């Protein structure tokens, strides 16, 4: 059983990865029409969802969603539910990977085939998606430990740069009192979605310690504001809409004068590639375990089982297929659709788990 700090890491990785999953893009599209109030609303909504889910599932210490469902529901209900959520989380990983392929081809290696890149990603992600939960969390901790200082450096560097226009930021802040939209709220709440991984990772927590959960809305709000406002500060209130991956364009506008690498972009790219891969590994692990859990109880976690290969193989194939069908525009649209669907799914999941909890309390 692991220390509860790993739960906060799960939150943090999802929050950091928002840049890849079209959150800034969605928010920036509506910067004059409700993005800013949506950020505050999504902080409240996201924290509520997170707190509700984490608190409820902490009563089922050491059990993942499949085990909890297996105890309370018949297979007819739990099977479609689990497959649905498994699919949702597989798609999250797919979007992260496909967008990163796009970023790679666009910003770093234009002469490399996107299929080669995606196969590289898929190999790593599928190979490590069936590590045990503990192992993945250890790796996550190591990577966050290595990269958080660099992320902070990038953040400070970007905020202190003379090219950063605070006027543009102020300009956008004046649009505070506009009507928020569902889409932007859905995008904003993605920051807090890391808790969803508890559906499987709760297996390693005996009793989740929610004592420091108040740090999450604060961190989440900061990340959201940075995500939204820094690109505006660099590209201006109007120019910012020209970029799909606004953060990568932003990183490309910053220079490190005294380092052997001059363009901050490459540092940023390297870190985010590493973080995206781990995030995809986590998402796919959850997807895989939910999928397997839909069909049967969890047997020992050791070894590479045949079923794993089939599931991961077919999802890898699906990823390549999806990639071949989507151009940049449609990919962005797909990403935004995912954000919208996800929020509904999260509410539904919270309702289901609360229902299970209430029933089990009544029974006891």
């Amino acid at each position, binding site marked *: 059983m692991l*220390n509860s700090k790993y739960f906060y890491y799960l939150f943090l990785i999802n929050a950091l990865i928002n840049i890849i999953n079209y959150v800034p893009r969605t928010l920036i599209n509506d910067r004059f029409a409700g993005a800013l109030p949506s950020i505050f609303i999504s902080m409240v909504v996201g924290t509520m969802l997170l707190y509700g889910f984490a608190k409820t599932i902490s009563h089922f210490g050491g059990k993942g969603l499949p085990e909890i469902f297996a105890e309370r529901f018949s297979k007819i209900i739990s099977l479609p539910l689990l497959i649905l959520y498994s699919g949702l989380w597989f798609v999250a990983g797919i979007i992260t990977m496909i967008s990163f392929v796009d970023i790679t081809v666009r910003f770093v*290696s234009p002469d490399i085939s996107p299929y*080669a890149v995606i196969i590289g*990603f898929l190999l790593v992600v599928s190979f490590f998606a069936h590590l045990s939960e503990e192992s993945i969390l250890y790796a996550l*901790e190591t*990577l966050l*430990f290595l990269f958080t200082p660099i992320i902070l450096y990038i953040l400070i560097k970007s905020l202190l740069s003379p090219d950063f226009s605070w006027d543009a930021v102020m300009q956008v802040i004046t649009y505070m009192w506009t009507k928020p939209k569902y889409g932007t709220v859905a995008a904003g709440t993605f920051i807090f979605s890391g808790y969803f991984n508890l559906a499987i990772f709760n297996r390693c927590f005996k009793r989740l310690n929610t*004592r420091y959960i108040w740090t999450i809305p604060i961190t989440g709000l900061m990340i959201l504001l940075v995500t939204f406002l820094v690109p505006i500060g660099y590209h201006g209130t109007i120019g910012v809409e020209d970029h799909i991956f606004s953060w990568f364009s932003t990183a490309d506008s910053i220079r490190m004068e005294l380092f*052997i690498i001059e*363009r901050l972009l490459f540092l940023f790219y390297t870190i985010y590639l590493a973080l995206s891969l781990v995030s995809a590994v986590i998402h796919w692990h959850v997807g895989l375990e939910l999928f397997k859990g839909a069909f049967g109880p969890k047997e020992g976690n050791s070894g590479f089982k045949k079923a794993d290969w089939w599931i991961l193989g077919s999802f890898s194939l699906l990823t390549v297929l999806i990639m071949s069908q989507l151009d940049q525009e449609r990919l962005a649209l797909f990403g935004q659709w995912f954000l919208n669907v996800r929020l509904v799914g999260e509410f539904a999941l919270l309702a289901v788990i609360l229902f299970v909890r209430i029933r089990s309390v009544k029974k006891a």
Partner: protein
Amino acid sequence: MVRKGSGELSLWLADQLSDQIDFEQLKLGPSKEVGLQYMRSLTNSDTVKRYVVVPSYELKDAKAFEEYIAAFPGTVRAEDRRTAMEYVLKGFAMLTFASRCYLVDAVKVESSGIGEAMNESIVQGPRDAFSENIETNINMVRRRYQSPTLKADMLTVGNISRTTVAILYDDARVNRQVLREMKKRIEAVKIDILQSSGEMEKYLTKERFRVFPTMIVTERPDRVVFNLAEGKVVVLINSNGFAIIAPTVFSDFFTAMDDKIQVPMVGWFLKITRYIGLFLTLTLPGLYITFASYNPEILKAQISLLIAGSRAGVPYPSFMEVFLMLLMMEFLTEASLRLPKAIGPTATTVGGLILGQAATQAGLVSNIMIILVSAVAISNFIIPLSMMGYTIRVIKYIIAVLAIAFGLVGIVISVVGLILYLSGLRSFGQPYMKMHVLEFRAKGDR
């Protein structure tokens, strides 16, 4: 101080040490009324025989024998349990008479067979290395670890070689699960000949395809003692100057015994240096391929031009250059290892200096490549334990190959993959790599 009866003291000692395989007790004298107790591995049996056992039969009664023993130089009266235990574990022999106990100095000091640590040399601190004799080795450990909870279990492995294998552990601190697993695995080893710890280490791991060592093989008794106190299990093998320590974590391989001796700040600095060295030796070849062939725009323009200019005369792609030079470096390392001591330096000079110089002048490799290869080799040697050093030597090729395939992406993929792989490894059921630096308990944790 409460005067304990001599019989009770002797019984207590026997009770405490009875499950130590090298504890021996006898009754001496014609009437068998004098008790003799000592640790075989720590006590010089010749001294005991000549000055204790023989006179006990020659003198006329126990009284005379007691006077003889009391007059012995270096003999101490055993006043209480603590002194008795302390001295017996030092190598004294305890003699129990009707009314009191004596501790006779018969300490065995094995100095002739003990050499200096060659593979893990350090600047300050103890220089002893394990010898080839298991009794001596246990003696060396016991001398540094004078606690009654230190246990040694003896086993025999090998149908023909009948090699004695000792499992050492601190009974009060050891992780039981690891100990059980270790015993089970050693008993499961079915081979004819066992000669070295490295061999044993191989039989003790289950995974067939593995690159990373999950056990430390060391020649330093101080490292063994340090790890015993941490609750780890140590396996000693007769006729072999190396001990196996398990379970281990990744960072153990980057700890030199020097770090304990240095001033804390210096120790941390050295530790961080090692990780930087690790990072460099792993990624430099891959990065060179990336910067020369895939993404020259990543570096500052001047540096990219420098690399391109240096590579201007080189007639093949960067990865050929990298692999050629890395292989040459491996040959050089291997050659200087196997050559007799007298020729070794000549080979390295010829190989390293002259070959490197000539190769650049001939235009076969770039100047920067030579610098890089030396940097890679030197930062590889910074790793204190050679087993991990060998592993890292292999891993850097994997990263280089991925860099050929994917450029910068390949390097990031392989580094992330490496971290995930290491986190997935287990050493006797214990996690192999996690951030021990961040181990703290928050309020309200259970």
